[in-house]
């Protein structure tokens, strides 16, 4: 029995192409039914995410199965796509790498594991998997867990927004009852705020020189807009300040902040200054209870995390190698029997 993997991903295809191949949740059943009619193909799982569409199949005749998958994709999309394919053992290694986040756009990201688990559960639920793919995917989940636990591949955040969320977590713990204020409705501040909302922040106050823009952003992220002249009135109750105005000078100095901090009953304040030129005087970081990060420091942390993750790849590959060998041994021993 062979394991076949065929598909396209972000390495070889732009989003315009990937989106034509994507398989939506409601289509999975039909797609799996169609794939399993391919001669010599016994089991199948389809993993469809924003960065990849991959078909995993167990087949006694991988060449014929691959032709069948290609024909199906052509028939479905009407285009000749640069589909890559792997046979055993590369296909096994590929799945283990995918599940571990080593093949992701953001190295070491963990969302993919959930997506692979969901894809497998769907296929298994529809009866599209049997002993070989069941074992393969269970192994993939074990590998991903081992890679995550025994290495630092998931260490740190690798984008400005994610770093901000991580730091907020290190200051406040849970973010559920935290209040965020956005000064200047720029793209990066919006993205950062969205990250925080995704982590449970309930209250977002948006203030912009143009009130309409503030109102529009507030409506988008479920926040509240206030006039720019009034932002300091809300200051006492906020925990996180994201600033990205286009002001040519600092809008928050140490002298201005110190009396405001005295009114906050010793609660810490996380200031994220995304503006260039900077909105917040760097001396603000010396105020007790204030943690100031500008765009450079956030990017530096993201770069550092990525570098740590890259250093871990070798160890991850070693873990994967061990599991691939173990799986291939099982497969070679005839651990699987073909249903008639």
């Amino acid at each position, binding site marked *: 029995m062979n394991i076949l993997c065929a598909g396209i991903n972000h390495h070889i295809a732009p989003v315009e192409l990937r989106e034509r191949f994507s398989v939506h949740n409601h289509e999975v059943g039909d797609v799996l039914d169609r794939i399993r009619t391919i001669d010599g193909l016994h089991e199948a799982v389809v993993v469809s995410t924003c960065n990849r569409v991959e078909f995993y199949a167990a087949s006694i005749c991988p060449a014929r199965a691959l032709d069948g998958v290609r024909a199906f994709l052509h028939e479905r999309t009407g285009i000749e796509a640069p589909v890559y394919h792997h046979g055993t053992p590369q296909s096994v290694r590929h799945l283990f790498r995918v599940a571990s986040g080593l093949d992701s756009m953001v190295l070491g990201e963990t969302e993919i594991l959930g997506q692979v688990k969901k894809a497998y559960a769907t296929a298994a639920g529809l009866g599209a998997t049997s002993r070989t793919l069941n074992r393969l995917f269970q192994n993939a989940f074990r590998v991903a867990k081992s890679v995550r*636990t025994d290495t*630092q591949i998931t*260490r*740190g955040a690798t984008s400005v927004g994610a770093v901000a969320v991580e*730091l907020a*977590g*290190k*200051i*406040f*713990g849970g973010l559920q009852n935290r209040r965020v204020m956005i000064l200047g409705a720029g793209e990066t501040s919006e993205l950062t705020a969205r990250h925080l909302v995704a982590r449970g922040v309930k209250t977002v106050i948006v203030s912009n020189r143009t009130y309409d823009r503030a109102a529009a952003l507030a409506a988008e992220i479920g926040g509240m807009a206030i006039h720019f002249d009034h932002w300091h009135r809300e200051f006492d109750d906020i925990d996180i300040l994201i600033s990205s105005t286009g002001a040519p000078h600092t809008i928050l100095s140490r002298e201005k902040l110190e009396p405001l901090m005295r009114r906050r*009953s*010793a*609660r*810490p304040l996380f200031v994220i200054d995304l503006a260039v030129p900077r909105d917040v005087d760097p001396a603000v*970081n010396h105020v*007790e*209870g204030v*943690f100031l*990060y500008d765009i450079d*420091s956030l990017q*530096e*942390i993201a770069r*550092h*995390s990525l570098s740590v993750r890259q250093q871990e790849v070798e160890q991850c590959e070693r873990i994967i190698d061990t599991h691939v060998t173990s799986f291939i041994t099982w497969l070679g021993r005839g651990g699987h029997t073909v249903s008639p």
Partner: protein
Amino acid sequence: MDRYWLVAASFCFLLSFGHTLYALGAGKFRPARFNLAAMLAGFGFATVFLVQRGQVVRACPITNLFEVLVFLSWSIVLIYLLVGPAYRLSLMGAFTAPLVLALMLFALIAPIDAAPKLQPPNPWVEFHAALSIIAYGAFGLACIAGVMFLVQERQLKLHRVSDLLYNLPPISDLSVANGRLLITGFALLTIAFAAGIIAGLPVHSIKSITSGVIWLVYGAIIVLRHRGLLAAHRIAMLSVAVFIVALVTLPAIQHLSVPPNL
């Protein structure tokens, strides 16, 4: 002979501390069961020592400075075992182990294990003394939470991305733990003082006055914290400073106290 139990306990705390240092240095730190197991084993050995010593002195084994230090170490670990896992304060064991280890090593090395002055047992006096030391155990752990807060705060202020930043708990959690430990210690010390008054211990002795001042200082910190008049940073600093002062003055107080040495 009973000192061997302390050596074994010290070895366990050393093992816990060393393992954490190695794991952090190698970038492999995980909140593992090893540290907790080592702390539990150390606690067990220290308990055996205290039980054996208690049988010898026929009282709570806090009859000299040596025993007081061991009892204090035991109390710190006891509070850690009760609080640490409950609050999921990662690395608290790693910070607790060196303090306890230092106290135990000092107790083992310094010539302070004087022969006990056997006194007729007075339950109120023993209760007062034991509870006082357990209260200091809580203050000791508040000091540790304070140190952890200051380390984490410094990392966040200086934008240092290290294993410590990722493994130490959020400063808000540390601040809460610090506050609760201060309150616990204060409550225990208050009860201990009440027991001392019931036992008829002298109120105007240097020991009582010093202890009263420490009680007042901790009380003031708690009130100022409750009213939001002290930032978490200052509370952490004070938790560390006051505990160190209490620890440094302990031998002097012990020396000055009249029999029974409680």
